[in-house]
C-alpha cells in the first residue's frame, strides 16, 4: 500500500470518526466515565508496553511516544 493510498484511507477514517452524527450530552456519560474505558488507563502499563514492543520490533510508533531513539536498544 503506497503512501498516497494510506493518506486517503486516513482522511476517510478521520472524517467518519469526526462526523459527530450523534452528540452525547455530558450528563449521559455514565458508562464512558468508567476509568477502564480510557484507551491507556494505566500510564505505567502503557510505558512498559511501549518500551517493550519498540525495543523488540522494528515497527514502533503510533502510541503517542517518540518512535525509536531514547535508549541504547535500537
Amino acid at each position, binding site marked *: 500500500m503506497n503512501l498516497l493510498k494510506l493518506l486517503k484511507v486516513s482522511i*476517510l477514517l478521520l*472524517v*467518519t470518526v*469526526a*462526523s*459527530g452524527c450523534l*452528540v452525547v450530552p*455530558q*450528563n449521559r456519560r455514565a458508562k464512558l*466515565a468508567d476509568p477502564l474505558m480510557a484507551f491507556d488507563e494505566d500510564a505505567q502499563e502503557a510505558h512498559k508496553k511501549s518500551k517493550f514492543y519498540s525495543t523488540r520490533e522494528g515497527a514502533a510508533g503510533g502510541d503517542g511516544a517518540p518512535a525509536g531513539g531514547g535508549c541504547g536498544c535500537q
Partner: protein
Amino acid sequence: MRHGFSVLAGLFFVACVPASSTPVAPPPAGLPNVELVNLDGAATRLPEAMAGRPTLVSLWATWCEACQKEFGPLGKLSDRARAEGGWVVAVDVGEPRAEVARFVKDHGLRYDQLVDEQFHFADALGQRRVPATLVLDGAGAVRHRGGDLDAAALDAFRTVLSMQSTHAGATQ
C-alpha cells in the same frame, strides 16, 4: 474512482457535522413541574418541596468526579442555609434510586437528595452537564444557572436569601 473517494468523504462531512452543532433550545426561566423521587422512593415535585424557600439545587451523578469534590461544600452550605430559612437539595440525574441511596449512605452525605431517574427534570431545565448548580428564589424563579458550585452561585444564593429575609421583615 479517484473523485468518488473525495465525494464520499465530503458527503460524510456535510451530512453529519452540522448535527453536532445543532443549537440547544434556551432553558426555561421557571422551574419545571416534573416528578422526582426521594431516596425512600416517595414521589415529590420541587416547587412543592421548596415550600417557598430560597433553594440551591445541585444536579449531580455518582460517576461524576467533579461532583464528588462538592460533597463537603454542599454539606456545609446546607447547614448554613437552613439557619437562614433556605434549602440545599441535590438532584441525581439518570441513575436508579436504589443505587443513589446506597452511594449516599456509603459516603455519609447528609443534605437532602432527590432523584431524577429518567433525566426528565434535567432535560426540562435544558441542563446537559453535571455538576450543574441552580439558585431559585422563594417564588421558584431561576436566578442563577452555572456548572460547579462556585463563588457566583454562592453570591446568588446569598442574594435570594437576603431578599427573602427583607421581604419577611417588611411584611411583619
